């Protein structure tokens, strides 16, 4: 931090209002914060908290129906709102750069990545092509990309690398402030970890400030020095990350922090019940009153001002700051929030419902006519390559892995949405061929799958009633008591059952509600087996915890077997009984959740676990950064598929593939010759040397 007397960016009492046909939405209601030179600043909050609106206001990119009612945005002491559109454009990119939310799609597919950055440079600086090209190479180096690849097109990079390109582009003109809107959302843990590492690294090398907008507190805890927590368009708490996250003084911060699932650490996450406030008028009470367990009369009357806490860089907007310590203790208890604690004991797992044995799903790659004619053997993408697993009643099996490891294909193959190409699997003791020969209806009723994207998994032209009722019609199940069946199911998943709700269309529902409707659709025919493919990846933290609790309850009370597929290890650990780690179409480690999470055997599991961000800024996390990317599933290396990236790999690993149960005992197996907790230091060293060699070639 450099000490200049004036902060780089000052947002003062910003009020933004959107006018819609149904009246106004007060998105931010007096947000103030300031960012000093060289500081990483985090802006956190759930969706609808106004964090993106605040950033868009700073950038001057508010949508047309958004107006700034009052407030000032001072950049280097100059009020940005007084500038003309043209002057504003000059400030943008030149001094304030922006990394948009879906940065991976923000690159022009028909222009080389280097060319796009060069264009940005030449637009603002009068430099020669060679000079610009030099700068591009330098930038590629800074963000950790190979400088030789500036001539490559976006599609030649993976998602994480494309994200690096957009970061390089943002850095091109050495801006004083970079605004990043959810830069790692949609990336999986390992890639996210690498990007965060890059951002921190850049922070050390370049003296620019960063405004990071995210809903993940863990990401802020790891990268930022200061933060503001927004709720209902108001700042609830702000100050240095260490103070705010270690000793929160605002009930909202406590709730948010407690609902963030963590791999290690005690206790179940506690979600905040209720939903974000309706912002159709400016909040007169404290924005959080409705959901706050500590609310009193005083809270109803006014929204508290941000008050400085003594001796610290820490401000909180709460009427009860003085009770903070007591509230912190209470907030960790679920019953404070009015949540019934279900009995902690795990229900007995029942008989095996689904079992796969060496299940394969290979996709044939399209061949040219010539090679077909020549009779060349086609090449295959081995998406699922010999997976054996079993799931019992009342059990939740978590399947974890990076994107592209084949976990979604596995889910779809188990749901018989795509035809298995090898191996066997049985459902209810009958092989899948039995179902395919005329018993598909039975299979489709008993096994249900829930897809990732709640915004696309419901037919936009059907009402909730139709959506939930349709499976009943299809399977001719409980048709005489349709209405009851629908109501019951909606109650199970915790949705309202009023006629008004039943007549709503998906776009009128919130993300969490949509995902619940999707689950209700699956549950209405009383299935035995549920496959959930990343059901929570697009939901806010507290909604995510709600969903996990719901699934847990379903497994415990309805005796449903559940497969939960996700890249988010923290939520998997939270919800599952057993955990299977998948890498390139194979299971590398399987076992009871506690053992896999606490004492991983496979080095890949280890690095996955270490990649999850820590919400507590005081904890120093040891990163196990993996080199490179997963190999191409068409052209798999011989031997252990993980060997090329493994820090411990030896010649043995490269020549022969370890069996799925090469290490471990019954109940916890790993496909590794040198499991972590049994590994000896000599092997480790040999592995190091080997890695150096492989870097050389």
């Amino acid at each position, binding site marked *: 931090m450099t000490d200049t007397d004036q902060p780089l960016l000052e947002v003062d009492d910003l009020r933004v209002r959107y006018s*819609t046909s149904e009246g106004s939405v007060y998105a931010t209601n007096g947000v103030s914060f300031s960012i000093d030179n060289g500081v990483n600043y985090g802006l956190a909050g759930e969706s609808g908290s106004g964090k993106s609106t605040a950033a868009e206001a700073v950038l001057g990119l508010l949508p047309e129906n958004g107006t700034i009612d009052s407030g000032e945005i001072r950049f280097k002491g100059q009020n940005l709102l007084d500038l003309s559109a043209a002057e504003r454009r000059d400030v943008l990119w030149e001094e304030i750069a922006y990394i948009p939310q879906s940065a991976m799609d923000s690159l022009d597919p028909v222009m080389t990545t280097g060319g796009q950055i060069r264009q940005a440079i030449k637009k603002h600086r009068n430099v020669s092509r060679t000079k610009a090209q030099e700068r591009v190479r330098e930038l590629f180096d800074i963000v950790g990309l190979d400088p030789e690849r500036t001539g490559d097109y976006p599609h030649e990079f993976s998602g994480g690398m494309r994200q690096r390109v957009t970061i390089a582009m943002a850095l091109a003109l050495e801006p004083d402030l970079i605004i990043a809107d959810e830069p790692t959302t949609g990336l999986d843990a390992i890639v996210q970890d690498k990007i965060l590492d890059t951002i921190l690294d850049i922070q050390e090398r370049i003296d620019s400030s960063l405004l990071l907008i995210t809903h993940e507190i863990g990401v802020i805890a790891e990268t930022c020095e200061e933060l503001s927590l927004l709720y209902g368009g108001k700042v609830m708490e702000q100050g240095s990350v260490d103070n705010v996250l270690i000793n929160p003084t605002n009930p909202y911060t406590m709730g948010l922090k407690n609902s963030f699932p963590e791999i290690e650490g005690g206790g179940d996450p506690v979600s905040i019940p209720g939903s974000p406030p309706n912002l159709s008028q400016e909040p007169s009470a404290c924005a959080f009153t409705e959901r706050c367990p500590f609310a009193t009369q005083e809270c109803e009357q006014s929204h508290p001002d941000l008050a400085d806490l003594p001796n610290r860089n820490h401000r909180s907007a709460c009427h009860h700051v003085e009770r903070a310590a007591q509230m912190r203790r209470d907030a960790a208890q679920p019953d404070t929030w009015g949540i019934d604690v279900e009995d902690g004991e795990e229900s007995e797992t029942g008989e095996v419902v689904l079992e796969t044995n060496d299940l394969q799903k290979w996709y044939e790659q399209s061949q040219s006519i010539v090679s077909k004619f020549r009779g060349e053997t086609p090449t295959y993408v081995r998406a699922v390559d010999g997976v054996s697993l079993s799931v019992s009643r009342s059990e939740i099996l978590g399947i974890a892995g990076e994107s592209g490891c084949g976990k979604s294909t596995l889910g779809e193959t188990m749901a018989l949405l795509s035809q298995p190409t090898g191996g066997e699997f049985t459902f209810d003791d009958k092989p899948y061929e039995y179902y395919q020969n005329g018993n*598909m209806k039975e299979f489709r009723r008993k096994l249900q799958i829930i897809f990732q994207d709640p915004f*696309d*998994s419901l037919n936009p032209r059907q009402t909730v009633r139709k959506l939930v009722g349709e499976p009943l019609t*299809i399977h001719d199940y409980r*048709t005489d008591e349709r*209405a009851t069946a629908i109501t019951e199911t909606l109650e199970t998943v915790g949705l309202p059952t009023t006629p008004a709700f039943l007549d709503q269309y998906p776009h009128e529902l919130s993300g969490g509600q949509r995902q619940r409707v999707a689950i209700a*659709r699956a549950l209405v025919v009383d299935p035995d087996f549920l496959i959930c493919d990343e059901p929570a990846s697009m939901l806010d933290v507290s909604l995510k915890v709600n969903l996990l609790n719901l699934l847990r309850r379903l497994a415990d009370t309805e005796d449903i077997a559940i497969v939960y597929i996700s890249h988010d290890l923290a939520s998997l650990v939270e919800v599952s009984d057993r955990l299977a780690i998948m890498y390139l179409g194979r299971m590398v480690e399987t076992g009871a959740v506690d053992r896999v999470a606490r004492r991983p055997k496979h080095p890949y599991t280890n690095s996955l676990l270490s990649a999850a961000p820590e919400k507590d800024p005081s904890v120093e996390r040891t990163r196990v950064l993996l080199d490179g990317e997963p190999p191409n599933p068409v052209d798999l290396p011989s031997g252990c598929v993980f060997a090329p990236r493994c820090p411990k790999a030896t010649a043995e690993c490269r020549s022969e593939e370890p069996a799925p149960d090469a290490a471990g005992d019954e109940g916890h197996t790993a496909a590794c010759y040198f499991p972590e907790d049994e590994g000896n230091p000599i092997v480790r060293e040999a592995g190091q040397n080997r890695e150096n060699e492989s870097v050389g070639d």
Partner: protein
Amino acid sequence: MSAESVSLGERIADRTDRVWSHLRFLARDRLALAGLITLAVFVLLGLFGPTIAPHHPIEDYVRTTQGDIVRLAPPSADTPLGTTEYGKDVLSQFLAGAQPTLIVGLLGGVGTGALGFLVGLVSGYFGGWVDEVLMRLTDLTFSLPFMPMALLLLTFITPNVWLITAIIVLFLWKMPARVVRSEVLSTRERTFVKSARASGAGHLRTMFLHVAPNVLPIGFLYTAYGVAWAIAAQASLAFLGFGDPTTTSWGRMLRMVFESGTIRIAWWWVLPPAIGIAAVTTSVFFIGRAYEELINPEIQNQ
């Protein structure tokens, strides 16, 4: 919810309610309202035009009190829209001419939209060889030029309204088919379609209840286009002299005014059919546009 408890009468009442609410919704859009009114007038003209026409459009001559045939007279109290070169009443021709235009336009348009929509839906949904066969068929109809082919057919067969409608549908379904197919291709990849399959829905249910409603707007738009195209095509055919010789249509009126060589002078003869065709096709577009808003719940609430 159960179907048994609802009597037929209630169902009909429910349906009419819905139709009314649709119409009320359309009426809120001013252009659509104008379109609705124009179309209503047009339909009335089509139904009752021939009966309310003061003269027979083809057989009767307009004569002076002396018994002379009044040729090419501008509008007057006696003949509100003037007379033609051949001494016929333009108003009567205009009124009677609405009927074939209505039949061809409505049936041709709806036929084009429906056939094209079905072909596109089936082709896009199933893909594979079904798609291959249907799309090559579409390509074939694309490669045949409409006018020459239609003229060729009509030289061998005596044209009548129904035949012309059929020919128009036969040549125009390709347009909606192509567009609907490409929409279906992207819709069927959406998660809710996969989710419907996973919940056990059969192909027919998935196709008509999940895919079709989401591509319907395009279907409607192209039906509206189809109405406009059909009217224009019928007018062109009539203008080229291949219309139904026994009846008057707006296209045939234009043909006559062109043939008589008075197209530059007799504006009262040119304008009524020209404005009629333009007004009907435009109002169909306006209604189609507003209707899309109605059936798309996402736009509706904004």
